[in-house]
């Protein structure tokens, strides 16, 4: 989301299912995006094994150097290798993005499915509570909690963002399940005497999986944007640990001497976000089984 933080906006977009007449092929660009995301995750996991320079080593003989053979992406205002810092920086973004959305899904998804399947009072109460929480501007709550809950750590950041994403995941999953739960094959399974557990796992889960996966990826992208914003405000991991957000933040003070420091982390972040958003979007439209197609 360009207005970042708009986790709410993402939910809106995820629910706004466009209905294609025929199943769209995934296309080449989809696989390029998958490759790119895979490459980023690979880099984040194996950063210490890869032939990268020490991201914290300050080489005062090469300050604000332009990209060259020795430093492929150039160096920052303290002479640290930008390429290495971009790769190490992806660790923070990916960890926070994945960790937080896993908390959101761990709690929000089972609750959403159960509520949509059971209906009755359980659903009514839970949905009202989630609605109340959704009305609370999540980003402002996250900023507020992190500024008071000191000392900050990566773990706290993940927990706070993760908890903030629960109501949203709940709503997306509940809506998706509701659409499936009233289908004939679910009723048929019930009539045949299938257990609740079986219906939830074998009938409902596979059918909401594409939407869940799509929103999962878009959620990771949104949280990465949010983490960057927190880094900007000094509420994420402390320097000198590199993250995409705090690299861009450092870059803005030396913008006129060193554009590379702003360029590479920004590019890394935007390309990663485009890839995630694109994959999420494509999965949604590819698996969108609408009445029109049936």
């Amino acid at each position, binding site marked *: 989301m360009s207005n970042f*933080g708009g986790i709410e*906006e993402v939910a*809106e977009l995820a629910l706004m299912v466009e209905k294609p007449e025929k199943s769209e092929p995934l296309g080449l660009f989809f696989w390029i995006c998958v490759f790119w995301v895979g490459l980023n995750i690979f880099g984040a996991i194996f950063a210490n094994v890869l032939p990268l320079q020490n991201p914290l080593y300050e080489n005062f003989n090469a300050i604000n150097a332009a990209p060259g053979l020795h430093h492929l992406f150039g160096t920052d205002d303290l002479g640290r290798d930008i390429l290495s810092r971009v790769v190490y920086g992806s660790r923070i973004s990916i960890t926070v993005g994945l960790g937080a959305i896993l908390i959101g899904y761990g709690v929000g998804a089972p609750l959403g499915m159960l509520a949509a399947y059971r209906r009755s009072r359980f659903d009514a109460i839970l949905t009202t509570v989630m609605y109340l929480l959704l009305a609370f501007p*999540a980003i402002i709550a996250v900023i*507020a909690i992190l500024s008071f809950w000191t000392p900050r750590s990566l773990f706290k950041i993940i927990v706070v963002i993760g908890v903030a994403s629960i109501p949203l995941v709940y709503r997306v999953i509940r809506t998706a399940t509701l659409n499936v739960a009233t289908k004939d094959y679910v009723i048929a399974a019930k009539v045949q005497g299938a257990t609740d557990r079986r219906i939830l796992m074998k009938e409902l889960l596979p059918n909401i999986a594409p939407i869940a996966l799509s929103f999962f990826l878009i959620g990771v992208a949104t949280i990465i944007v949010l983490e960057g914003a927190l880094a900007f405000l000094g509420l994420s991991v402390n320097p000198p640990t590199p993250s995409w957000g705090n690299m861009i933040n450092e870059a803005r003070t030396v913008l006129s001497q060193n554009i590379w420091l702003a360029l590479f982390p920004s590019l890394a972040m935007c390309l990663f976000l485009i890839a995630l958003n694109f994959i999420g979007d494509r999965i949604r439209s590819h698996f969108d089984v609408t009445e029109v197609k049936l």
Partner: protein
Amino acid sequence: MLRYLTKRLVLLVGIVFVISVGSFYLIHLLPGNPATVILGFGATPEARAILYKQLGLSKPIYLQYFVWLGNILHGNLGISFISQTTVASVIRSALPIDVEIIVISQIMAFAAAIPTAMRSARKPDGIVDRILGATSFTLLSIPPYILIVVLVLFISIKLGISGTGPSAYVSLGTNWITNLESLSLPAFTLAIGSFVVYYRVLRSDLIATLQEEFITMARSKGLSQRRIMWRHAFRPSSVALLGAASVNIGGLLAAGFIVQYLLQIPGLGYTLIMAINESDFLVVQGIVLTVSVLVVAINFFFDFVINVVDPRISRE
């Protein structure tokens, strides 16, 4: 309609209650005695006494909430222990700047999103639609803090238009032209983010609306394309647009915080971040409370407007 509004009003009260409890509890997230954390170790006994009275710290926690709430309802948000002014006055002087940036950005976003969405919806999957689709998709993935850095780099530094750069802020009262100039980059940044959302929402809603029977009817009557678009399709679709705008407000404020911080524009966001850095916790609490209540109130207002535009909603 009345029943619907009453229901929403009850919900609004509930939400405001949750927000007030949340904002109140923030102080207790601080490690250690709140008075020590807020005032620092070198605080005078008088200052401690004032704070204890303000926060009701000697009482049990649920009573503290009511003491605090009572103060809030009288407009007393406490005193900033850094600048020694009231938190309420800090907010009063900062808030109009946020409002100005957001209003300008929303005018730009709507002015761009409505015509482009209509153009796209007229021929979905046509060339113009594909280009706009790809553009909006790319813009969707550019965070505001990257966009503003790029804009500052090219417009303020490379083109040398210094009135738009960091710490160039001039208040509206001093000179409205330089004021607009200094707010142009932040407003533009927010406008891009909103444009993307509005364009996408309005486009898909218009496409759906244009397939309705009353549009076919209007076409068969021989009405002009323009009239059908504005009078028959846009009005029902504007509900989706208003809904998107309402949901967008929270993110917009937060995005505004970042761009203000970057350009040192003394709005709520800049004030908030400075307060966080200086551990001026009562200012942080006051801003969080104000902004949250404001967002909820704006959402409620949009709900009301949507109901007026499309009375079918409240009947459901």
